């Protein structure tokens, strides 16, 4: 291989041509696929029992209203079946040493109490499990068993026992004809040698209960956008029937509140979260689609419909779907204690009128934040984080997916909020930069 002067190599520096991808959301999956498609081995580490990330829980995607699970599922199976990808789900990176071209990684494989190679995903175990707990995947609106598959398309389709809630009745073990269940299973630590690392740890939704004025956590009919996604999802806890938590009634007048936990210097989230406007518009459109009679209003500061097809979608939401847009941030939400309706205060900036509006359901559209585990991973990998908690990148233009440590790349929301296409693109980009390093190992 011929290289320019910049690339004089120290012998033995580039030892491994395997890659590690941390995070099995859509960005991490894409990065893994694009590295694996070049013929390199990829370890894809995901801390939850299944890959798929946030996208798996979303109902529809903007701006085309494609059903999220439908477009994600092929990717899930592509990743799972790829000969060059080894899935390490329910696992976390514990230690990392080394440098670009030669990292040594220790990974804790948390005990699932179900042997991955024996479980066929038939689900008989969950049927007999007597324990029901609120399901994380359903935003705790729905329930799961103590032995569970997080969602129907979970990949790998392997059950996991949640030992915190398991009552050790052993019914599942008795039912499992394949003998896959093992209560004695212990965490395992595996060691890997990789040449490049891609961090794709995603995001967490801002906890909007820190805005008491908006009533989330206090009023039942104030829900967040992720809960809404599950409520309108056919595979969700209500089989896609949008209802009010307080009384199970179908809401007829829904308000969406934007810019909560985003663009707020007082709550440590000064940046714009990029996706909330559009997912808000999308959810509003879906509300009208679920019930064309329903009145739907979005309260916003600026509608940031900046991506491909976004402005057109925003326009369509106004004109064809009849979503009502009010420019103005909501000052206060108050519950009518009788009806459990919500009354909001907002100034319509376009008319300078202060309006008191009654809704029977309010959906708060929270901004994104770095996920809880990012700090740990940053520490393990010695990556720098910005004040806002996201990973720092080396250069905006020449190294937009490179972290401050050579050989470690970032994509998806690890270095800032992104929508799906931008996450996927960054995943491919991180893969590209990672494989440049991996290819040097081939040079020997």
């Amino acid at each position: 291989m011929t290289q320019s002067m910049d690339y004089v190599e120290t012998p033995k520096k580039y030892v491994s041509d395997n890659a590690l991808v941390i995070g099995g959301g859509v960005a991490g999956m894409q990065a893994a696929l694009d590295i694996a498609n070049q013929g390199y081995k990829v370890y894809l580490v995901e801390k939850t029992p299944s890959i798929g990330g946030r996208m798996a829980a979303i109902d529809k995607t903007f701006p085309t209203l494609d059903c999220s699970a439908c477009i994600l599922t092929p990717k899930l199976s592509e990743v799972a079946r790829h000969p060059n990808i080894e899935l390490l789900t329910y696992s976390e990176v514990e230690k990392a040493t080394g440098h670009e071209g030669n990292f040594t990684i220790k990974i804790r494989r948390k005990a699932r109490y179900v042997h991955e190679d024996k479980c066929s995903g038939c689900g008989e175990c969950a049927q007999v499990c007597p324990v029901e707990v609120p399901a994380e995947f359903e935003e705790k609106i729905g329930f799961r068993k103590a032995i569970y598959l997080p969602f129907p398309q979970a990949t790998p389709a392997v059950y996991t026992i949640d030992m915190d809630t398991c009552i050790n009745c052993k019914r599942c073990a008795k039912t499992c004809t394949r003998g896959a269940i093992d209560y004695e299973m212990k965490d395992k630590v595996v060691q890997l040698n990789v040449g490049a690392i891609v961090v794709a740890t995603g995001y967490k939704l801002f906890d909007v209960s820190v805005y008491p004025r908006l009533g989330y956590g206090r009023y039942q009919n104030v829900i967040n956008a992720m809960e809404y996604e599950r409520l309108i999802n056919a595979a969700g806890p209500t089989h896609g029937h949008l209802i009010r938590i307080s009384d199970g009634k179908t809401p007829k007048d829904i308000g969406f509140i934007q810019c909560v936990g985003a663009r707020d210097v007082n709550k440590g989230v000064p940046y714009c979260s990029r996706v909330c406007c559009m997912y808000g518009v999308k959810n509003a459109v879906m509300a009208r689609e679920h019930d064309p009679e329903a009145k739907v209003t979005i309260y916003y500061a600026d509608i940031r419909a900046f991506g491909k097809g976004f402005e057109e979608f925003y326009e369509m939401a106004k004109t064809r779907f009849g979503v009502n847009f009010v420019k103005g941030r909501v000052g206060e939400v108050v519950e009518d204690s009788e009806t459990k309706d919500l009354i909001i205060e907002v100034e319509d900036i376009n008319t300078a009128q202060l309006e008191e509006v009654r809704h029977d359901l309010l959906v708060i559209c929270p901004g994104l934040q770095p996920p809880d585990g990012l700090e740990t991973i940053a520490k393990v990998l010695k990556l720098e984080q910005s004040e806002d908690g996201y990973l720092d990148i080396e250069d905006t233009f020449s190294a937009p997916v490179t972290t401050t440590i050579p050989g470690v790349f970032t994509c998806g929301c690890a270095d800032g909020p992104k929508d799906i296409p931008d996450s996927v693109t960054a995943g491919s980009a991180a893969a590209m930069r990672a494989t440049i390093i991996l290819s040097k190992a081939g040079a020997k």
Partner: protein
Amino acid sequence: MMTEAKATIVTENDWEPRIVAYCCNWCSYAGADLAGTSRIQYPPNARILRVNCTGRIKPEFILAALDMGADGVLVSGCHPGDCHYTSGNLKARARWALMEQVIEQAGVNPKRVRLQWASASEAQIFADGVRALVEQVKELGPIVREWK
């Protein structure tokens, strides 16, 4: 090609036009997909057949459909100049004029067939096209009355 129409003749009141719609894969079929994802509602009378390009559509396909009892035929493709295969739709357009004459000679009102251009992003145009043809055909009545 001209097989006898096997369709049962139905009474005036129940009658709903039956439309065969040939759509190219790259523009109009995608446009119809977008109409779906955008939840644009249009009459359910058309049955879409996917072909790679409108250039693939033989005049016989249209004649056969009418012959077998279709009340209308829609051909929908990429805008001229935008063909995924560069120029297939231009051939389709060139054949169209001739085709209309043939249909007329066979005693069928050429208003029963419609050629339209709808790109992958023009879901509304696609849906409007279906609606327009359905309404047109409803005015003309069932095809069995005119086919010679």
